[in-house]
């Protein structure tokens, strides 16, 4: 087995092991969105009916569930990407970079491991779908999971590209929140694009998370087909972010100056 393949498998397994050994991470990435979902669904249940939505999704709880799945994907992926900064701080990344293992195997393991964990968490939240929106069939559930997984791949890759260059978790959080919170708020998680103001509707239509959320929503809504645009954007978003992450990391590879912590620079060493 090549060093690349062996590293990829071993470090992906490491990501999964690390996750199971960090209960706080599980609670933070699933608990927070779940609480938000419950409170929003409970709070708005009898106050609003989403405009322009008919059928099972006219119930606000059923409407908000896909948005919560998206939020779980986003939260979990951010945590996964941020672990790259921890690896750098703890010295693990430097030890890996000094080995002959190719960079793609090191960062790829992070992307796959992180996306897998995020997808598994989304799957757990999706289990609520039959209770709030009716049973969409196994195919619908799997399609919803696929859409969530694509969102996870995209956000994890975006996060890894950023984490490769940002040294502090505070800075990482700041930038990710700046990018992802508006994306999530405009994803159709809480209100449908149909009822939004014109300018906001336009923003939502260019927001890739809106389309992945639409794909999740279509998947868990019985008798609904996913619009082809949603799948094209969902796949395109994931692919584009993967390519960007690959380009960012690959650039370091070519310059032989990867971003490892150089504490000594400040002391002229």
């Amino acid at each position, binding site marked *: 087995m090549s060093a690349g393949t*062996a590293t990829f498998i071993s470090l992906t397994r*490491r990501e999964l*092991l690390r996750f199971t050994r960090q209960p706080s991470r599980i609670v933070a990435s699933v608990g927070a969105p779940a609480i938000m979902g419950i409170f929003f669904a409970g709070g708005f249940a009898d106050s609003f009916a989403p405009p322009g939505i008919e059928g099972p999704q006219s119930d606000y709880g059923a409407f908000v569930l896909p948005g919560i799945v998206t939020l779980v994907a986003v939260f979990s992926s951010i945590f996964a990407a941020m672990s790259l900064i921890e690896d750098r701080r703890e010295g693990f990344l430097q030890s890996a970079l000094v*080995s002959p293992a190719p960079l793609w195997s090191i960062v790829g393991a992070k992307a796959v491991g992180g996306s897998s964990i995020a997808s598994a968490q989304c799957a757990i939240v999706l289990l609520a779908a039959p209770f709030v929106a009716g049973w969409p069939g196994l195919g619908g559930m799997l399609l919803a999971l696929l859409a969530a997984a694509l969102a996870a791949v995209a956000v994890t890759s975006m996060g890894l590209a950023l984490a490769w260059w940002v040294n502090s978790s505070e800075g990482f959080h700041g930038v990710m929140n700046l990018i992802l919170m508006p994306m999530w708020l405009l994803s159709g998680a809480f209100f449908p694009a149909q009822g939004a103001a014109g300018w906001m509707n336009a923003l939502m239509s260019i927001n890739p998370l809106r389309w992945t959320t639409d794909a999740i929503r279509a998947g868990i809504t019985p008798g609904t087909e996913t619009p082809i645009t949603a799948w094209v954007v969902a796949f395109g978003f994931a692919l584009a972010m993967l390519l960007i992450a690959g380009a960012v990391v690959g650039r370091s590879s070519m310059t032989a100056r990867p971003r490892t912590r150089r504490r000594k*620079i400040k002391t002229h060493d």
Partner: protein
Amino acid sequence: MDQPQHDNSATAIELAELRRTYQQRKAPPIVALDGVSLTVEAGESLALLGPNGAGKSTLMRLIATLDRPDSGTVRVLGEDPSEGASATRAIRSKVGVVFQQHGLDPLLTVEENLMNQAALYGITGDDARSRARHAAIDLGVADRLASRVGELSGGLARRVDLARALLHQPSVLLLDEPTTGLDHLSRASFLDAIEQRRSTGNLTVVLSTHLMDEAQRMDRVALIDHGKVVAEGSPAALCGGFGGLLVRTDAGLSGELESAGLDVRTVGGEAVGAGEAGVVLETAQRLSVRAGAGDGVTHVLVGPPTLGDAYLALTGSALEDENGAAP
């Protein structure tokens, strides 16, 4: 653990005229290395001795192929990393590195960490497991294989880190301030483990340190100051340039030392006189009598010159101790 793979070339590391400058946004560039040239023979151990900020870690990063020089050449085991990815991979596969901070995952067990390390070098399955166990036995951590690294003491974690760096049987071992944060016992134990490893194979060791006693244990020492090698040689040869003995006493007594014919320097509130052993002993005895009589002398110490003295003589500045204070 098996013997390391020996390289046929007699020279393990060749560094020629290395320069490395770090650009800063609102300050002048920092010259970390300013024309460093060094050679390390296969099987030899070399200490890079200098205070924090001298350029040691930058030099280690260049040898480990984690960075590139602005100019000059690096050649490790006959390979030049600037020649491309294949040369870089060849070097990395034969070099083990222990950094100032251990490269272990605290959430994983010792065995899981070692297995990960093996995978980075394409070693998997039973071979990886066997190497992990042997490395753990060699470094005295076999009974902690199932423990998470986060639960280990600093000294044990360091031993595991050394096992990690040696797992793929490198020909060159780079140790970048590896004992930082360890107590004296753990430090000695760690250095003993490296010596034991050296004694069982033709392992080339490069150690960067600001601690004299660590450097003293190596075959050769290169004194680094402000990105330059100011002297290199065996510890004995570097210290021998001072003649027989040194006497250290109060700074105010430097005139008396000079009048006794000693070569005097004042360091950190002390006057240090160097010269012939007989003259040094006679002067020290005279000062000791005065110290005993409470005649303005608070302390008198006599001993052989150290690498710190050599460093001071050559650079005009003192090495730092573990806590960053001048000795």
